[in-house]
């Protein structure tokens, strides 16, 4: 009955009727609304200290405004390493985007395996690293790449080379970050593609076989078009997170020697904000980062929408 009410009646009586009708729903929402108000909107209220000289005694609202209101932003943009950090952030995320097709390739290859037992085993093993924590993955990386006793350097020495201190080389940082991420997630990221491939009709493949297509041609003209919608969706979702680098993982792999390549905006915020207590400055950087992120998201969404007709908004 409720849903068949004509929609146009929007008078106050109607509003009140609908509010009282579903008051129990609102009650169920109260915890989440209160929680989000405190823990998500609370820090947003605190963002004002980006424009203020924050004094703990006075609180966020009571602290005096900065004289040039954008003083902290100006300081950040003039910081000598500003462009370096932007470059580091961008190069790590773009690098991550370059390897985006690899889980798709993995799914296509796995789809060609006829032996079910083999297929399941490969899936089982390649999914496993996904469940390791960042700390464990990073320490595995450090142990595997260790200069003095890591297996990889041992292998290099055994084949006549010299030991390489991988983790201390700035130029190697983004590769270490990206490829260890691929190691951890290639299996897991392929799940959606594998299930999309499984739902491609067998008839289509048979028809192509009768037409004389070989397996590469079937992959190119049947399988890949079949999973294209899935690829588009995951790609858009990936674009959404383009500028939010995994700072907690980067932080673990950081050291003084690779810092010139591994300092990204978020890790810098942690260092100046939490470790040295420059709250106003750190908040300004976060705000800057957040605004740039949103602009890039909107731009990416605009482009993807133009090209594929699907977008986030």
């Amino acid at each position: 009955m409720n849903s068949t009410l004509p929609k146009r009646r929007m008078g106050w009586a109607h509003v009140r009727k609908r509010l009282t009708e579903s008051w129990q729903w609102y009650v169920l929402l109260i915890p989440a609304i209160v929680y989000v108000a405190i823990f998500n909107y609370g820090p947003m209220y605190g963002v004002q200290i980006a424009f203020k000289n924050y004094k703990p005694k006075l609180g966020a609202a009571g602290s005096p405004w900065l004289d040039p209101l954008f003083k902290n932003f100006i300081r950040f943009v003039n910081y000598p390493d500003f462009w370096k950090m932007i470059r580091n952030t961008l190069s790590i995320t773009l690098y991550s985007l370059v390897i985006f097709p690899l889980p798709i390739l993995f799914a296509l290859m796995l789809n060609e395996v006829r032996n079910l037992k083999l297929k399941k085993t490969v899936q089982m093993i390649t999914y496993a690293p996904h469940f390791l924590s960042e700390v464990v993955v990073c320490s595995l990386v450090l142990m595997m790449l260790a200069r003095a006793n890591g297996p990889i350097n041992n292998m290099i020495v055994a084949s006549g080379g010299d030991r390489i201190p991988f983790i201390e080389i700035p130029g190697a940082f983004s590769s270490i970050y990206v490829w260890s991420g691929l190691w951890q997630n290639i299996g897991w990221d392929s799940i959606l593609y594998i299930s999309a491939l499984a739902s491609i009709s067998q008839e289509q493949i048979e028809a192509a076989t009768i037409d004389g297509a070989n397996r590469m041609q079937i992959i190119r003209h049947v399988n890949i078009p079949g999973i294209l919608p899935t690829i588009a969706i995951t790609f858009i979702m990936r674009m959404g997170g383009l500028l939010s680098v995994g700072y907690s993982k980067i932080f673990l792999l950081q050291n003084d020697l690779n810092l010139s390549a591994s300092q990204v905006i978020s890790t810098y915020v942690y260092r100046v904000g939490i470790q040295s207590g420059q709250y106003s400055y750190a908040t300004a950087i976060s705000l800057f980062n957040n605004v740039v992120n949103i602009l890039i998201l909107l731009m990416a969404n605009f482009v993807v929408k133009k090209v594929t007709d699907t977008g986030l908004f």
Partner: protein
Amino acid sequence: MDTAIQRQKKKTRKVGLFDFVNIALLLLLTFICFYPLFFTVIASFSDYVPVATGQVNLWPIGFQTTAYQAVFENPEIWRGYLNTILYTVFGTAFNLLLTIPTAYVMSKKKMFGHKVISWYFLITMYFHGGMAATYLLYKDLNLINNPLVMVVTGGLSIYNMIVTRTYFTNSIPDSLYEAGRIDGSSEFGLFFRIALPLSGPILAVMALYYAVGHWNSYWNAMMYLSNRAYHPLSLVLRRILILNESALSEDQLGMLDPETIADMARRANLAVVMKYALVLISSAPMLIAYPFVQKYFVKGMMIGSVKG
């Protein structure tokens, strides 16, 4: 008959170069995924010297279990383990308490104010106050150096809420609720007696998603907890594995005779192998549980990929 067999043979023989290369590449990839974990296992049971010199490849050399004994004798690690379990259990319970009812109500698109409330939640996915503002808020809330912070922070993941909402929308037909209403059930009754009993799968998925997040995270603990007694396992691991603090506790170091340098060296070597043991011990619960719960994770991904 003969031709049938021959045709069969021909079919199997078509397994040619393509399959060979494909399977070889897949096996190589599987090996790359598997070997670091396997190496961790054998290194943790090996003597330090063969590990460091690269003799340990496929089998432990100089078999020992002292690394594990030493790990278990370190009270910090036990403490961390206990803390992690507590944070995971209570944190996940808190997450579910916030996520499930919210997702249920948000699946009611006809609710008055649905759009406004949706945006109220969605905005938080894109705008953040940032680390420092959050830190100051937590300071005001008295959450700094308070273990409660590990339970309440990240209480509601909007993404997970949307996945759950999609489940409610797609998996429970409206007719069930209508039938309940005809029977005179209240909206609370519909939620507790119809929706909840039917949401077992999504409860499992969400509990797992959140629990893995709690188990593996170290960042929040590093930000908000400076008292070592409150540190979760991940932070203890970070200190030992990443920052290279000795895995041997103060007590253990104090116990050894300082005069025998050889003993010191042996201990230092043990600390290296202990790292491998520690990686395994900390990851064991996840790695053991994962084959059994894998299907729930996959299910969660599937639900998430359907636009709600």
